[in-house]
């Protein structure tokens, strides 16, 4: 017999794991961009927001089914990622890293206000309500389970792409040594565009999954964007495995913190944990001490 509190606790733990899946997906995309191009896209969550709007309009206005709209949304955000690299990052590749960071901050403003101007500030949702799965006394929404499953599949697909294809191998090689790879006959410009598109595609996938759980509005990116950066830094920027571990750690802290108090305190705890960890392990969770 489980006590009622234990049931809530277990439910929070499992919900934390489910939340962690999507966060890990976002962190993977951001880490990929950072690891290969050495740029942090501050506007990453805003790409997700645009993808969520894409899903909303395709499903609600054009009457497409969710599963038909999802691949289009993923392609759309992938194209947006490539475009972002081509228009903003490519001219700044040799500039100071801080300038690149600030330029993507400008893109954040542009995307947010573009959404405000084009779509208005109303909260919108797909109108799809997936059923709730009851297991004993615990309740889990199917949308979270689906998100977790799809995020895992997405991450495995990226892993296979990175290890089994020529382009993937070239991407990994560039993240190890930027200068040498150009001498080896790899077209770095092309690889950068591919990587940006892949990062965008991951944001698009996250958008398809998040739109099932959250309403879309122009500032929705602010509710999970900062968390994603913190996860990447906590795991060590560019460290894929570290980002994965950090995503689940963070999700558990938010979920369990929210159990004892309001959700905001979950976030406060997670942020405080982050700052604490920066003191203990400044180079990331899994980094070796030098």
């Amino acid at each position, binding site marked *: 017999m489980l006590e009622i509190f234990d049931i809530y606790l277990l439910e929070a733990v499992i919900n934390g794991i489910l939340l962690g899946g999507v966060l890990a997906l976002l962190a993977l995309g951001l880490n990929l961009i950072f690891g290969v191009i050495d740029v942090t896209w501050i506007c990453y969550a805003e790409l997700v927001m645009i993808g969520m709007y894409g899903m909303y309009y395709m499903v609600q206005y054009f009457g497409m089914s969710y599963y038909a709209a999802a691949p289009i949304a993923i392609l759309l955000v992938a194209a947006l990622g490539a475009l972002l690299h081509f228009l903003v990052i490519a001219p700044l590749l040799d*500039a100071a890293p801080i300038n690149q960071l600030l330029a993507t901050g400008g893109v954040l403003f*542009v995307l947010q206000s573009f959404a405000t101007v084009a779509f208005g500030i109303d909260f919108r949702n797909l109108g799809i309500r997936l059923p709730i799965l009851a297991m004993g006394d615990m309740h889990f929404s199917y949308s979270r389970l689906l998100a977790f499953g799809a995020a895992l599949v997405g991450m495995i697909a990226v892993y296979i792409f990175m290890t089994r294809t020529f382009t993937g191998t070239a991407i990994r090689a560039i993240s190890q040594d930027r200068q040498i790879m150009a001498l080896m006959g790899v077209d770095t410009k092309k690889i950068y565009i591919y990587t940006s598109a892949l990062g965008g595609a991951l944001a698009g996938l996250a958008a398809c999954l998040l739109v099932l759980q959250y309403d879309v509005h122009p500032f929705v990116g602010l509710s999970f964007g900062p968390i994603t950066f*913190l996860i990447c830094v906590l795991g060590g920027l560019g460290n894929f495995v570290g980002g994965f571990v950090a995503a689940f750690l963070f999700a558990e802290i938010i979920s369990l913190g929210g159990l004892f108090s309001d959700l905001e305190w979950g976030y406060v705890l997670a942020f405080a944990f982050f700052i604490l960890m920066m003191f203990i392990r400044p180079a990331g969770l899994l980094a070796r001490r030098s």
Partner: protein
Amino acid sequence: MNQRHILIAVIGAALVALPFVYRDPYHLHILVLILIWSFAYTSWSVMGRFGLVSLGHGGFMGVGAYVTVLLWNHLGISPWLGIPIALVCAGALALVVAYPCFRFRITGHYFALVTLALSGIVLQVITATRDYTGGSLGYTPERTKGSHILALQFDDKVVWYLIALGVWAAGLLIWHWVDRSMSRYAMEAISEDEDAAAAAGVNVTFEKLRITVISALMTALAGALYGQYQMFISPDTVSGIAVSLQMVFAAVVGGIYVALGPTVGAIITILLAEILRIGFGTKAVGWDNLVYGVLLILFIIFLPKGILGSLLARLKSPTKH
């Protein structure tokens, strides 16, 4: 040099005399806002110019504004005492976050993202403690009737204009003082190469900490003044990531390497927002930020020194070459 001092004195006298000659309340209001935000942007650029890009200044500003108003409303402590307490809080916060950052060599991207976490924390704490702070709906200092020196509440915009002018001038003086001090050379050496700077005898951690705390204190003061002037603060206007980015944006557009750069940035951004607001009314929601964002990207790509910085460089270069 003497000519320059006279010029500064004349401009200063003209700025002080302005509200006694010209009293249009709306224009004075815009001027006060420009001065307060110029001061905030200047305080960001005090550290930003050395490559210490902080996205946590929204947090310091929020602490300055909220601590002052909370002390007044709940404990009845006058802002004259409340503002110093708020400054101490912001300074302590800056120390707590910045010391480990600098000690463990968290620089560049990492520093920007750690400080981003700081603005996130402050925003979430304000929202989470909504029983005291009003949460995301905002918060108003309790009014006293009419002007009240003790409560630091004045109905007369001229008083506020003079206060803001004084604080803004003090901000420029601090900027100038840092620019002329040994700290500047130490900080420039640090931003080029920390190891080399340390080898040359620069106390890297201490120099960075000092500049960060100065910057945080100034920003908190800007937040407190903004709260007292507007008599309304909300997490969106004085805290959080959007405010931090706005500071960076305005400073970069104006130019972070020249003293008046952030002021030029504040004039441009505030006038732009006001013109769009008057021209388009409620339809303007979003348009101002859209223009900001595009400008920011264009500036960083084509004019990384900012408007004023590039202008001054162009004026100077013919004489140099």
